[in-house]
């Protein structure tokens, strides 16, 4: 039986986070009453002209640089001509043969911690269209609807189109690629990348071929996927469909397929024979773009640490688990806090334990982000030092952390003021042990009769008697010795 290999390429549309829209002064914000964030320019009114948004250009160049792309000196805007009711000018300002960035690669990692990469073809800039709501048909589709409502608030929002090479080979790879892309865009601050708000939309080009072949099979393009989970399911389902079709002697038709979330299958939307002739040509309302080298150098120098670099640092240098590293990378403010704590404590493992454990738990309970909490990074580093130096035990540390969350300040000061330092003096602990054994004759008898599981209870009583300060290991040892 033939073994098949999937070949996947992903196209992502990402709405950029900018003050204003791509070609006009309207605010770029999600939502709002329909058609309230519009002006003659983004409505394509007769006579209105586009003026490019420099912030959006900068965002694309930074994104390209983050992925190691080439930034050509010259770029330009082209018009993509086609008629669609939610497109104000009936052409979209986009980029055809001279995109802002060329090449580059996205590094991503899988659950086993392995780092992989997928090359990029290009990243270009275009304007978003408006949004149609088809009414009267029940299912929101245009067929059978009696009228459509148009909202142009989104029209003219800057849109980054990020096109990958067909180098991904499984649905899992595709999702890991998307997650890494998403993390990078967040780190760069260029987009909110919220799939549920439509600020991240992606299409997948899927084909299969006999394993080992170097020729590409006929591809289909899947649309309408609205979460990473549905991207994964859609690609898996499409790969299975294509393999089944080929194995059965069938032929793949090049077409656009929609993803049906409920049924869990893709279905044909339109075939390539109906494909548009977009009649691209340079937009005569916009002069060619020249990206100065100095600007590129300046943006390059100011790039933040990339997620995959941080992943390597967390897992390889700090020895954190894949899960912990990923959690930190996905929460920028938490990671910043963590990095600050490590910088002081020089103890990544303990820092990660506290930040991802007790502090994150408190953050969830109170709804206050760790970075915004009253727990100063210096104080947390002190706490870690107290634990590591066996000045306090972990139980006391947890109690202290709760009090620090409420604003108790320096743990060292608390320990001193309240005499919470761990007692490691065998003589002192021995006194507590003697007290406890004397007060629990029956338990002692049980132990001697072979019920060794009561040891924990007795040690607990010793800890309690010492108000938690006794060195637990020492207490354990002394109890055992006395009972022997």
């Amino acid at each position: 039986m033939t073994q098949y290999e999937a070949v996947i390429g992903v196209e992502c549309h990402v709405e950029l986070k900018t003050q204003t829209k791509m070609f006009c002064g309207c605010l770029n914000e999600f939502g709002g009453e329909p058609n309230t964030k519009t002006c003659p320019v983004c409505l394509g009114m007769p006579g209105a002209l586009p003026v490019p948004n420099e912030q959006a250009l900068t965002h694309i160049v930074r994104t390209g640089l983050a992925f190691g792309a080439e930034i050509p000196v010259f770029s330009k805007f082209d018009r993509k001509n086609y008629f669609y009711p939610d497109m104000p000018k009936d052409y979209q300002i986009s980029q055809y043969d001279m995109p802002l960035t060329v090449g580059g690669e996205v590094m991503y990692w899988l659950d086993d911690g392995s780092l992989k990469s997928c090359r990029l073809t290009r990243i270009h800039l275009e304007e978003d269209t408006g949004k149609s709501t088809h009414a009267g048909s029940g299912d929101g589709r245009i067929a059978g609807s009696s009228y459509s409502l148009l909202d142009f608030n989104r029209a003219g929002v800057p849109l980054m189109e990020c096109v990958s090479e067909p180098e991904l080979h499984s649905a899992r790879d595709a999702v890991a690629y998307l997650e890494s892309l998403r993390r990078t865009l967040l780190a760069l601050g260029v987009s909110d990348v919220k799939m549920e708000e439509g600020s991240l939309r992606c299409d997948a080009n899927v084909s299969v071929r006999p394993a080992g072949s170097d020729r590409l099979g006929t591809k289909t393009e899947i649309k309408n996927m609205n979460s990473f989970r549905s991207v994964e399911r859609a690609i898996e389902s499409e790969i299975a469909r294509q393999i089944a079709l080929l194995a059965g002697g069938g032929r793949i038709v090049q077409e656009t397929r929609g993803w049906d979330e409920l049924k869990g299958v893709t279905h044909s939307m339109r075939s390539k024979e109906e494909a548009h002739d977009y009649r691209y040509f340079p937009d005569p309302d916009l002069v060619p773009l020249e990206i100065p080298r100095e600007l590129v150098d300046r943006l390059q120098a100011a790039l933040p640490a990339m997620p995959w670099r941080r992943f390597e640092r967390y897992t390889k240098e700090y020895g954190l688990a894949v899960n912990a590293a990923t959690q930190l990378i996905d929460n920028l403010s938490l990671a910043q806090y963590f990095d600050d704590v490590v910088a002081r404590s020089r103890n990544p493992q303990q820092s990660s334990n506290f930040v991802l454990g007790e502090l994150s738990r408190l953050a969830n309970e109170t709804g206050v982000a760790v970075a915004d909490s009253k727990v100063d990074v210096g104080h947390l580093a002190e706490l870690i030092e107290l634990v590591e130096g066996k000045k306090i035990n972990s139980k006391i540390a947890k109690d202290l952390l709760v009090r620090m969350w409420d604003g108790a300040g320096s743990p060292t000061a608390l320990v001193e003021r309240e005499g919470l330092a761990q007692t490691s003096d065998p003589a002192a602990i021995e006194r507590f042990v003697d007290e406890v054994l004397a007060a629990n004759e029956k338990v002692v008898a049980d132990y001697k009769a072979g019920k060794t599981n009561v040891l924990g209870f007795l040690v607990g009583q010793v800890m309690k008697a010492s108000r938690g300060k006794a060195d637990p290991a020492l207490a354990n040892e002394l109890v055992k010795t006395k009972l022997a």
Partner: protein
Amino acid sequence: MTMEATIARSAAEIARDVNARTTSAAEVTAATLAHAEAVEGEVGSYLTLLRDVAESHARHVDERVRNGAHLPLAGVPIAVKDNMCLENTRTTCGSKILEHWIAPYTATAVARMLEAGAVPIGKANCDEFAMGSSCENSALGVTRNPYDLTCVPGGSSGGSAAAVAAYEAAIGLGSDTGGSIREPGAFCNLIGFKPTYGRISRYGLIAFASSLDQIGPLTRTVEDAAFAYDAMAGYDVMDATSIDRPVEPAASGLREDLSGLRIGLVREFDTKVLGEESDALYRNAYRDLERLGAELVEVSLPTADYGLATYYLIAPAECSSNLARFDGVRYGLRVEGEDVRSMYDKTRAAGFGPEVKRRILIGTHALSSGYYDAYYVRAQKARTLIARDFAAAFAGCDLIACPAASCPAFEFNAKSDPYSMYLMDYYTIPMSLAGLPALSVPCGWVMPEGASRPMPIGLQLAAPLFAERLLLGAAHAYERATNHALAHKPELAGVRA
């Protein structure tokens, strides 16, 4: 002051008098409106007369002057070509598809004219979407040449030209894509001035061909053209193709002679083909330039002959895209259909006239895959060659002189074949492709065959990029020395009185 004396003054004179408060903007406006209403039945310059708007602007101007403002165009009545937006007024482009469209904002060039004190009298007729050379392509009205009502006023800014020639405005705002200011200027005995591409903002000018369109004035004197240019020129943040570079004021650069200037005559532009009478007038005009102190030199524009073919690929290509937005979805005419696609088809079939459809078809074809390289890309290369020819020519001269149009104003329906109409712009298109400033200035009167009255013809002067000050300065010297414009008056009831 008689009505004629009030309205026949130049813009410069009106502004001077209003600023000196020897007359008021309200008075000039009232006289102009009354006169316009009297002659509109004959001429038909305007698609919309803006009586209330004009009166309210005039009051505002008078108030500003009373408060001590000196406005360079105080009280000057202007005609605004109906492809430029003026907030809350009908802006039609001479098309059924926009027949009832009310512009929600004002074009930058118009706003700057108003800021300088001008008073908008009306929205002037034009060829539909500025496509045409006679004004016969307007779907909404007929405009006649004030010098002979059986003749066209020229196009596409024919309404603006006729309004100024008939004293219905002192300045007409036109737009020139391939000659649409210079040609009606020549037909109506006016100065028709197209500045350097990008010098005047296109924001609010409803696009025909974005890379060629340029707003400019039609006036009775060169000085007025300079005033209008000074008011409108300059960078606009709303237009990415507008040029961010200081403007040399033109009104202060008007000259009385041409000494020290070398004026190029284009070897390839043989005026003999224009007929004996016109040929003689142009030769005379060149001699006048020499008499005024210019040195005449021969220059060559070997690729100018490709101008027409180049233009009729680039302009339709851009128009096919620019006019896509007129689809019935958001504004303007809508003809209902069974679905969106048929609504588009029916709306555009009913809304656009034949010339617009012809150019959309040519442009769509020229941009379509498989033909793009053969047509559009080659046309862009030819455009570059034409611009280089001009640059080489201007290495040897300061200005170029040549005819403004291929013939004087002709009778309605005389050029029913589109190609013969396209040929009208043979002398103006090359400058448009190169983005150069150019103007037409009256240079004599001819008696067209079968005509009952003499008709004006225009001399075209073209300058290097940004040399508007030199261009207008030289045209002023020529105008003052020759005074061709004053030889005849329009044959109108209101003006004869």
